[in-house]
């Protein structure tokens, strides 16, 4: 009887520890994902800038190309915007962006990506190449600043989230035992 009680407690403890570790990991992974999407967004903006200044591709095509290049949720957003705007679709980039957000509800993007892209699209498509590249550079600068903040937060908190998850679980186990 005592043996069964012991094994039940042990199994419960293991379960709680795993759950705690998993919770901590998920919190850290969220930050990692944010960092990853921000890197993709940065690369997408760079690609867009290059497509505009060197290849002179049309903006819908440049957005689709950038989207395919970077992949991830950011890539999906770029591809969607590109395919929803332009002369053929009879939509401006801003309208394409709004529709893309409606169509892609499942995308997990950092709030700042949506925010920066939202203000960038207002200036995409109606300016000369120099001005267009300047607007993208401004967005790129904002993204880099934000990414630096997230990176710092990640370095500080990712390990902490993982350790805290485990410690929290350990605390519960001790209390329960």
């Amino acid at each position, binding site marked *: 009887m005592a043996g069964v009680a012991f094994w039940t407690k042990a199994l419960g403890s293991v379960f709680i520890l795993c759950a705690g570790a998993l919770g901590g990991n998920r919190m850290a992974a969220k930050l990692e994902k944010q960092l990853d999407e921000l890197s993709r967004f940065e690369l997408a903006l760079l690609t867009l800038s290059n497509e*505009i200044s060197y290849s*002179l*591709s*049309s*903006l*819908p095509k440049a957005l689709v190309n950038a989207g395919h290049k970077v992949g991830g949720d950011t890539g999906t957003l770029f591809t969607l915007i590109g395919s929803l*705007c*332009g*002369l*053929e679709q*009879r*939509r*401006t*980039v801003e309208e394409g962006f709004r529709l893309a957000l409606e169509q892609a509800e499942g995308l997990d993007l950092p709030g700042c990506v949506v925010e920066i892209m939202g203000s960038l699209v207002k200036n*995409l*498509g*109606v*300016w*000369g*190449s120099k001005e*267009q590249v300047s607007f993208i550079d401004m967005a790129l600068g904002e993204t880099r600043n934000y990414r630096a903040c997230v990176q710092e937060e990640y370095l500080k908190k990712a390990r902490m989230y993982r350790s805290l998850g485990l410690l929290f679980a350990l605390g519960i186990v001790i209390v329960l035992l």
Partner: protein
Amino acid sequence: MPRTMTGVLIQDIMPLFSSRIGKALGGWMERHPNQAETIQEIRLRTGLPLCIGLPGHDHLIHSLVVSRADIDKTLSLITDCSYYALEDEFKGGYITIPGGHRVGLSGQVIAHADGGHKLRLISALCFRIAREVKGVAEHIVPKLMSSDGSIASTLIISPPGCGKTTFLRDLCRILGHGLSSCSLRPAQVAIVDERSEIAACYGGVPQLDVGPRADVLDRCPKAKGIGMLLRSMNPDVIVTDELGGEDDARAVAMALSGGVKVIASCHGRDLDDIRSKPYSEWLVSRGYFTKAVVLSKRHGPGTIEYVGDIM
């Protein structure tokens, strides 16, 4: 099945406008169906009423004042959201959109020290609706045949707005198909379209019917284009619009000396007027062009005043 003007406007032009302009224009067209069929231009000017250009007059829709946002939306769409990619084309003051319609632009011009200029802060757009008139040259072609059974090198003469370009375009189409009624065999036609008026290319592809055997050099200076086509496309006939200076005359002479026929248009009231201008006189007096068509708008654009030999 040819499209009606209302159909052209609904399919090609109105989707390029903001919804409020579309509504206002659609409403006007519904109220004036007969006038809608004759629309030639639609003008959007920031801060001013929408203007509909009709033959001989225009109509302002005072209830709709065009805003900067309306212009930006339309500009964004006509440039495929890629204003930057068309900056060089804007220097010419217009772009061609699908369907062959031409959009004229005006706004602030930035002049550079190197003599170049850039158009920015566009504040007005003028949509000129493309209209094809097929068959206008069909009954004239038999009179333009040379003794060897091919088309003769021909000069189309008229003042502006008398249908020179429409006539040239129809000639290109007929030459490409051939014309059995006068045993004219189909010919390889090369078009130097410096002002994108003959073929109205969009993305390098003709939007108007210039026949099945036409190669088009779009927005290329005539003198340069004629040389390029001669070397690269082996044409039977070269067609070009509005011959002007010495370079054009020399290029035409070079093509004709090489055995290629040239059909070109130039500004003038009649043959005497042409003879009073140095370069066209040089081409005519040396026998480079052997036939002429003189157009006027005495009975409406495309009135034929003279067809025949250049004496």
